C-alpha cells in the first residue's frame, strides 16, 4: 500500500471541493438543513410532550447519527462518481494504483468530507438546538465506529453496483439509506415493527446503535452483547462489501468494462 497513491485520490476530492462552491452544498448546506428541520421539530415536540422523554436527545441525536452514516457512505460513492462523471477510469486504472489503494483513497476522502458535514451538523445541533452529547458518554465511540464501518460498507457496495451496471445505476445508490431507514429504527424502537421487519432490522448494524442510544437516554444500561453483535455485523458487512467490489472489479477487467466505461447504461 502506497500512502501517496491513497492521498492522490483524496487530494483530487479536495481540489474539486475547493474549486467548486456547488460541491460545498451537499457537505454543509444539505447537512445543515437536515438538522435545522429536525431541530425545530424537536423543539416543537418538546413543548407538547410531557414526562421524562427527552425529545431533543432522542430525535435530534438519532438524526445526527443517521446523517453521519449517510455522509460516510456518500463520501465513498461521490469520490468514485467523480471518476465516473469525468470518464477517468482508464487513466486511473492504467496507473500503478491497486484496488486496495483506490478503495482506501475513497475511504480517506469519505472521512475528510464526512468530517466537514458532521462538524456543521454538530455545531448546529449543540449550539442552536441544545443537543447534549454528555448522556452518551464513551458509548458514542462504539456507536460511531459501528456506523462508520457500515457506512463504508454501503459506500463500497454502491460503487460496486455502479461499476457493474454502469453510470446510470447511480440512481440506485442515492436512495439506499432511505430504503434501510425503516428497518433500522432510526426514530422508533424495533419493537414497533412487524416481525419480518424486525428480523431484517436485527441483521443491520445501525439498529443496535439506535436501540442502544435510546436505552442510554432512557437511563437504562446498554447491553454490551448487542454492541458486540452490532460491531461484528459491521465488520462482516465490510468484508462482504470488499469481496463484492473485488469480484466486480475482476469482472470489469475480464470483460473490458473499465476500458469502455462511458456508456449511459451497460446491461
Amino acid at each position, binding site marked *: 500500500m502506497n500512502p501517496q497513491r491513497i492521498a492522490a485520490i483524496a487530494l483530487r476530492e479536495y481540489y474539486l471541493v475547493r474549486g467548486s462552491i456547488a460541491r460545498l452544498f451537499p457537505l454543509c448546506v444539505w447537512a445543515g438543513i437536515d438538522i435545522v428541520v429536525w431541530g425545530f421539530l424537536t423543539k416543537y415536540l418538546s413543548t407538547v410532550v410531557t414526562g421524562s422523554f427527552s425529545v431533543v436527545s432522542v430525535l435530534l441525536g438519532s438524526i445526527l447519527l443517521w446523517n453521519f452514516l449517510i455522509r460516510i457512505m456518500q463520501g465513498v460513492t461521490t469520490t468514485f462518481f467523480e471518476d465516473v462523471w469525468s470518464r477517468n477510469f482508464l487513466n486511473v486504472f492504467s496507473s500503478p494504483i491497486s484496488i486496495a489503494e483506490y478503495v482506501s483513497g475513497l475511504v480517506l476522502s469519505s472521512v475528510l468530507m464526512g468530517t466537514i458535514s458532521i462538524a456543521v451538523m454538530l455545531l448546529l445541533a449543540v449550539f442552536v438546538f441544545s443537543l447534549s452529547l454528555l448522556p452518551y458518554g464513551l458509548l458514542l465511540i462504539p456507536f460511531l465506529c459501528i456506523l462508520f464501518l457500515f457506512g463504508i460498507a454501503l459506500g463500497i457496495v454502491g460503487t460496486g453496483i455502479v461499476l457493474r451496471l454502469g453510470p446510470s445505476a447511480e440512481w440506485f445508490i442515492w436512495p439506499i439509506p432511505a430504503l434501510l431507514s425503516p428497518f433500522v429504527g432510526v426514530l422508533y424502537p424495533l419493537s414497533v415493527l412487524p416481525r419480518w421487519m424486525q428480523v431484517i432490522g436485527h441483521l443491520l448494524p445501525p439498529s443496535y446503535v439506535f436501540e442502544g442510544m435510546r436505552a442510554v437516554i432512557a437511563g437504562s444500561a446498554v447491553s454490551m452483547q448487542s454492541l458486540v453483535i452490532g460491531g461484528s455485523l459491521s465488520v462482516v458487512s465490510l468484508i462482504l462489501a*470488499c469481496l463484492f467490489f473485488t469480484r466486480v472489479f475482476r469482472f470489469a477487467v475480464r470483460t*473490458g468494462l473499465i476500458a469502455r466505461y462511458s456508456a449511459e447504461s451497460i446491461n
Partner: protein
Amino acid sequence: MFFLFFFLARSKQDTYTERIVNISPSPKRPSSVVLSVTNLRKDYGSLLAVSDVSFDVHRGEIVGLLGPNGAGKTTTVNMILGVLAPSMGTIRVEGYDVARCHRQAMELSNFAAVYAPLPGNLTVEQNLRIFGMLYGITNLQKRIEEVIAEFDLEEYREKKSGVLSSGEQTRLCLAKAMLNRPQLLLLDEPTASLDPSVARDIRTKIRNYAEAQTCGVLWTSHNMHEVSQVCDRVLFLSRGNVLLEGDPKTLHVKHGKSSLEELFITVAKEPLTLDLS
C-alpha cells in the same frame, strides 16, 4: 480498513496483485526489449477481438500499430495497460508480467489517448499533481515544472482542463504520459486533434524522447504520413491478427503498393489479396 483491503487485494488476483508465484522478475541486466507480447488473444464468447498476436518493442524504437477500425488495436493497448484481461498469452513490460505484477509494469509505462482526456474539472497543474502522485514520482513539483515547460502549458497551468482546446488537452495528456519518464509509452492517436505544426512538434518531441530516454513507444495512428515519418517499424493488424510487419518506408513497395496509405486501404478492405510471401 486499509489492512483489510490489503489482504483481500493480495488474495484476489490473477490480474492485479503483486503476489508473485513462479514469476520471473525484472531482468537483472538490461534487455533491449521493453515490451514483449506473446500469443495474445482476447475473445468475448464467440467474438474474437485479438487472435494470437506476438510482437516486441525495443528500446529507442517507435512501433506503429496500424489497422482499420475494429482490427484490435485498442483492445491490444488496453491489455498492455492491464485494464483488460487477455483470454490467453502474456505481456511483459521490462520483464514484468502485466497480469501478475501490474504495479511494477505500470510504474514503467504510461499512455495517452484521444479518448481518455484528463478530468476537465481539475486544472492543468492539479491533474499533473494527482497523476504524478499516482505514479509515485519523486521531486514531483520539479517534474511538473519540466513537463509544463516541455509541452508549452505554462499559460494554462491554472486553467481547468475542460476549457482547453482539444489540441491543448492532447498536450496535457502527453505531459501526463511523460511524467514518470516511462520506459514504455503507449500512444493511441496522439496527434489526432492537433494542427499540422503542433503535430510535427509533438512528433519530434516523442522521437527525441524515445532516443534520449531509450524508451520504447507503441503508437497507433490512422495518419500514414505521420507513421512513415515517426515509426521505425509498423505492425498491420487485421481481424485481430498481425498481418504485416516491417519498415514503414519500404513495406508498401514490398507488397506492390505505391504508398503506405494504399497498403492500409488494401489491408482494411481486401487483406486476402495481399501477397504475404
